[in-house]
């Protein structure tokens, strides 16, 4: 078997070369021939085009995107995490051998001037999707932590009315005019208001950063412009972080498509600076504004109408439903519909509105708390970055900042979102059943003194936190015990090991 391989790791001084050595040793032992391109700090000796053309199979051992992977179009490709290649190089070569066998032919693919770029086999796509999402998430986490903690501290300093003091509105019968301009915040709302505003601005960057760096993961720096712009539009059309993920993937895919188009040499120099940003931003922007935006706002309107028609129904069922919505997108449009519904009820006066407010606040606190608890109970199921996010999530959850759960949900939405929805539904239902009530629209544990039936309210939060935690551990464990064709180990699974 003739193999070409690329090894690549984040820093480029250690794993890249260890993986190269391990693969070379394993190939020697198995009687295969191999050429390895180390994309590391000690310079890069590119694989000769003839070597690629003659190769039967390609091994990519990389934790970051492989540079110029389009060279390998048409070849069977085995993709593994770089540490998999170090720890079990022989198994990686076996995987390559079976991949080669199943691809039908050991004959080298005919060489062409512009090799067709075929997407890697379906088995590798899930792994790469997770890598892209994790790239976006890892850049987003510091924004969540900085913004969330600033907002929490602003509540501690200035009390639950800080949001109204900055933005204007009615709280506890007091009318706040709000700051007339950003420079007037300190005079109208004090230092707490200033911190609240800074935190809010940090939060406003979550979705653009997430989208921008998902696209960066897919298409390198060319993806950044359409990704960030798509993310900003996702915020603008109230598509939340789910919209941001769509925008990021869309941007990355668009840039990849553009780069496939052969261009004359005269304009190829302009491609990265002018042509690609211009075209990709236009395509992503138009799609986000005209195609993605309308369905989302339509769904928003439908949900609002439906909710308003439902408010007379069984209170416990309403609490559960609002809990599901609070956790569904963690600060996104569905969450905001439920929250706005509760605040509107609060403004209309009466204890009924206060009960809904208490249920919504409790349910919104559960997702970060449940995930923080899960990172403590089962450390091994989470990446290092996620465990760090878990430490911040305690404070974010306690402060009713549901966004603290986003890093977890963005990395593994199909397991995390249903789990926290279950936890929040339990909490919402219990809070209604206990008739807990809140006159405060925000503030989490810091306004507990204002709440009616607050010990039971805390009990409701604790119950939902345990349920959410149990679900997320169960679902994540299920994945890990599912037998997967060895040894394609994803970035996340290695990081979790």
């Amino acid at each position: 078997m003739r193999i070409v391989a690329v090894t690549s790791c984040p820093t480029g001084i250690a794993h890249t070369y260890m993986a190269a050595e391990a693969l070379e040793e394993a190939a020697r032992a198995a009687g295969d021939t191999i050429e390895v391109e180390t994309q590391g700090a000690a310079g890069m000796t590119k694989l000769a085009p003839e070597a690629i053309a003659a190769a039967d199979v390609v091994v990519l051992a990389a934790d970051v995107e492989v540079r110029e992977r389009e060279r390998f179009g048409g070849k069977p490709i085995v993709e593994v995490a770089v540490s998999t290649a170090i720890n079990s190089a022989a198994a990686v070569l076996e995987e390559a051998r079976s991949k080669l066998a199943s691809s039908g032919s050991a004959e080298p693919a005919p060489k062409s001037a512009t090799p067709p770029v075929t997407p890697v086999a379906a088995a590798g796509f899930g792994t790469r999707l997770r890598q892209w999402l994790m790239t976006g998430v890892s850049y987003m986490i510091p924004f969540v932590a900085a913004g969330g903690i600033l907002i929490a501290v602003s509540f501690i300093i200035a009390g639950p009315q800080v949001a109204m003091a900055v933005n204007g509105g009615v709280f506890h019968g007091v009318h706040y005019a709000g700051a007339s301009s950003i420079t007037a915040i300190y005079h109208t709302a004090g230092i707490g208001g200033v911190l609240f505003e800074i935190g809010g601005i940090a939060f406003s960057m979550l979705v653009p950063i997430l989208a921008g760096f998902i696209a960066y993961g897919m298409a390198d720096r060319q993806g950044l412009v359409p990704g960030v712009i798509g993310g900003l539009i996702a915020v603008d059309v109230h598509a939340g972080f789910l919209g941001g993920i769509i925008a990021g993937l869309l941007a990355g895919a668009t840039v990849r498509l553009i780069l496939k188009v052969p261009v004359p040499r005269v304009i190829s120099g302009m491609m990265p600076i002018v042509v690609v940003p211009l075209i990709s931003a236009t395509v992503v922007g138009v799609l986000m504004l005209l195609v993605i935006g309308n369905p989302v706002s339509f769904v928003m309107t439908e949900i609002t109408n439906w909710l308003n028609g439902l408010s007379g129904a069984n209170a416990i069922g309403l609490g559960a439903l609002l809990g599901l919505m609070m956790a569904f997108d963690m600060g996104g449009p569905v969450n905001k519909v439920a929250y706005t519904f509760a605040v509107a009820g609060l403004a209309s006066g009466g204890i009924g509105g206060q009960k809904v407010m208490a249920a919504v606040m409790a349910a919104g606190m559960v997702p970060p708390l449940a995930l923080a608890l899960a990172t403590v109970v089962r450390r091994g199921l989470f990446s290092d970055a996620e465990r760090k996010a878990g430490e911040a999530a305690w404070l974010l959850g306690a402060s009713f900042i549901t966004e603290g759960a986003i890093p977890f949900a963005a990395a593994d939405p199909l397991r995390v979102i249903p789990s926290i929805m279950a936890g929040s539904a339990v909490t919402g239902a219990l809070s209604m059943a206990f008739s807990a009530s809140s006159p405060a629209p925000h503030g989490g544990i810091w306004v507990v003194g204002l709440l009616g039936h607050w010990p039971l309210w805390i009990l409701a939060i604790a119950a939902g936190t345990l349920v959410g935690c149990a679900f997320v551990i169960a679902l994540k464990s299920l994945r890990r015990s599912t037998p997967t064709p060895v040894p394609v180990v994803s970035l996340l699974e290695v990081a979790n090991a």
Partner: protein
Amino acid sequence: MPELIDESMVVLDLQARDKDSAVHVLAERLALAGRVTDIEQFLADVRAREQVMPTGLEGGIGIPHARSSAVTAPSLAFGRSHIRVDFGAGDGPADLIFLIAAPAEGGAEHMTILASLARRLVHGSFLESLRSLASPTEVAELINREVGG
């Protein structure tokens, strides 16, 4: 360019119980030897790398590392731990810890010595020697010889 490692950068009875303190002890050796100018900066860079993905590898190895503006020359601090320190490898904590320091700037020729070190790390016989040698001087000599040759 100085040699990759000397005996002052070898700790054969590392007492640290977690990876942060293990890295700290080894980084101090690098600072004392003049290889690291700003230890806080260097530690922050190592932590940042560690957060991307743990650097533990199967077979009891931890390779915390960073490219850092605080590093003057490609250097290695080596620690041997009977307590064993968790670096996030799938098969448990590490007893051999290699703290690899690379300067942020400098051309490829600076990095080849580290590439050569990394390639040695996958050879079981090299690791077994490091487990058995009795003195820091012997360890430093072995590493410099293997990496140079």
